[in-house]
């Protein structure tokens, strides 16, 4: 029964499993489902396992039982995208017009319906050109390209890629309330960083060690000898270096801020330093990068097991990274180019990562990102990237 319904669900892209279909059959046979309303709720509870698909389920349901036509094949996605674009358009017409590469005035004269139809056309074109997996897991802000469009150092990648970001905007609108692509909040960051810990016994000895107790009791000829251990506590040392200078980091400040807040609350031994663009002779302890410089040579004295996390967009003019006098600060003239200093840090701390708020698909366009990612394992500052970075940091080798 309802085989066709089941297969329509599957075709439309809801991950339904045969097992759950059998469960539904079982429910039908037990006579628990007595009306269409019952069927609607029960079939959903049994077949659909995520609220993301509730909307799709509804559409298939009315199609199957009420005969409402399904939107054409790729209609679901594009409908949603177009609606998202319309929202965006209402908020910021100029940006959208730019992103789509069309004339703002021309669009202004269209009615909302015409606009949606127009967007749909454009989106279909887009899909043809840029296939495949965008993983737009929230780096905050809609469009890194749009924001930093005037960067002299090569962040701007021209009209074509801006189109990509328009699709991205629309993409993000899908399942707006429930998707994983929302901004990184503390809760999400804590989820990702949960595994970043190094448990070491610490504190008072107040946990009973049963094995030791039994052994000691035996040695003591049966006279009970209680043995205690210390509780396991997290003692991971972390150095967090944040690029807080220059406006190329501006769009990402809130994301970085969240990460920083969280790190401060979560880890006992986290030291935060600041730098501008890249690291030369030193890092600063104060955000203004003025009062408390620390020479990075001193870092070699620290525990090499310390995890080093660098957060920055790694986007700058190539000479800033390569030249021996690349720093804009006159005091930093040790003669070592930044790239050498970075290599030194990477060698000192075997567990280090670079988190980049710039979307990974854009990295290839910026020379310095490529250069730095050869020194440090680089990950996108998103939920996905954080998880990968944590895995890398906890890697034993």
């Amino acid at each position: 029964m309802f085989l066709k319904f089941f297969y329509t669900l599957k075709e439309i892209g809801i991950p339904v499993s045969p097992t759950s279909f059998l469960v539904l059959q079982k429910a039908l046979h037990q006579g628990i489902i007595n009306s269409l309303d019952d069927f609607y709720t029960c079939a959903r509870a049994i077949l659909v396992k995520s609220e993301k698909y509730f909307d799709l389920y509804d559409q298939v349901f009315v199609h199957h039982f009420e005969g409402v036509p399904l939107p054409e094949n790729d209609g679901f996605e594009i409908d949603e995208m177009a609606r998202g674009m319309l929202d965006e358009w209402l908020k910021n017409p100029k940006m959208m017009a730019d992103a789509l590469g069309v004339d703002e005035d021309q669009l202004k004269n269209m009615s909302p319906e015409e606009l949606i139809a127009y967007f749909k056309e454009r989106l279909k074109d887009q899909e043809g050109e840029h296939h495949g997996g965008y993983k737009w897991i929230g780096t905050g802000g809609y469009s890194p390209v749009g924001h930093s469009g005037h960067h002299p150092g090569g962040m701007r990648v021209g009209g074509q890629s801006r189109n990509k970001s328009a699709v991205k905007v629309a993409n993000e609108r899908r399942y707006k309330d429930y998707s994983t692509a929302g901004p990184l909040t503390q809760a999400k960051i804590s989820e990702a960083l949960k595994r970043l810990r190094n448990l070491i016994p610490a504190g008072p000895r107040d946990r009973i060690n049963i094995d030791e107790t039994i052994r000691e009791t035996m040695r003591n000829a049966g006279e009970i000898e209680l043995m205690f251990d210390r509780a396991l506590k997290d003692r991971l040392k972390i150095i967090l270096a944040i690029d807080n200078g220059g406006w190329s980091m501006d769009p990402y400040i809130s994301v970085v801020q969240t990460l920083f807040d969280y790190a401060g609350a979560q880890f006992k031994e986290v030291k935060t330093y600041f730098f501008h663009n890249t690291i030369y002779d030193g890092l600063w302890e104060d955000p203004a990068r003025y009062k408390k410089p620390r020479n990075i040579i001193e870092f070699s004295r620290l525990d090499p097991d310390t995890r080093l996390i660098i957060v920055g967009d790694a986007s700058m003019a190539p000479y800033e990274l390569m030249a021996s006098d690349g720093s804009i600060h006159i005091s930093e003239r040790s003669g070592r180019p930044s790239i050498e200093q970075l290599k030194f840090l990477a060698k000192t701390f075997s567990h280090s990562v670079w988190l980049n708020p710039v979307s990974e698909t854009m990295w290839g366009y910026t020379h310095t990102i490529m250069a730095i990612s050869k020194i440090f394992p680089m990950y996108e500052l998103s939920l996905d990237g954080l998880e990968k970075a944590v895995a890398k940091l906890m890697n034993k080798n």
Partner: protein
Amino acid sequence: MYQESNSEFVGAQKYVLDQELASIVNISMKLEMPLLLKGEPGTGKTMLAHAITESLNMPLIVLNVKSSMKLVEALYQYDTLTRLNDSRFGDSKRNVSNIDEYIKMGKIGQAFCADKRTVLLIDEIDKADTDFQDDMLDVLDQMQFDIIETDKTIEAILRPVIIITSNAKKDLSDPFLGRCNFHHIAFPDPKMMRKIIGVHFEDIDSKLAQNAIDAFYSMREIDSIEKKPATRELINWIRALNADPDFRAKDLVKGRLPFLGVLFKKSPDYERAKNIASRRRMF
């Protein structure tokens, strides 16, 4: 295993149930499958389990999942220390050579061994790691587990009604989802909220309730609030408003919102809400 005809779940005294959820609960009970509930904090996921126990008169067993939890802790515990102590001093009535007497049931074990059908609430499953979740689902699927120390298998006498809650935005693993029914509780709309408030405050002034709910929903709308106030906060807020002798219901319309700290628990959220509230008052 499932006999009584009157055991349909129809809601409880302090719980406003929508029809959809009721039929999902009932079908999960009949199919004897765990029901996984997701939804924003404060949509009454945990309350549902309490409501079921109240309405069907079944005992409730709560397993609060913690991040460091191991599955075996939820099943049973072997009390080595008491046994060691007994074997040394020999002054207890327990038989030291019988390990069974030192096995204590954990929450899942208790639910299995109960001689009455129970409601087993597994709260905030997303806190534990995925291994825990999958292993536990195996136990719940088979409705049995082994006690390694005594090489015994504990089988559920009566399959408990299992309610699992999760706050996570992330989806749980596929094998996990495959084994349970799923429902997402949406945040109640103002009408529903009015009913919920009515259930909690029987003799509330209807104007106060309406104004408070309106103010509450408009405050949930404020942008970039990290932790939106939920039903629990609203109930506490109304309680606070009721307790204040100087408070008048029409103040809320004018934008005078006292006790914002009850609604917003994070200081940036609080500051923001306070700013916006005071700005509204001027117009």
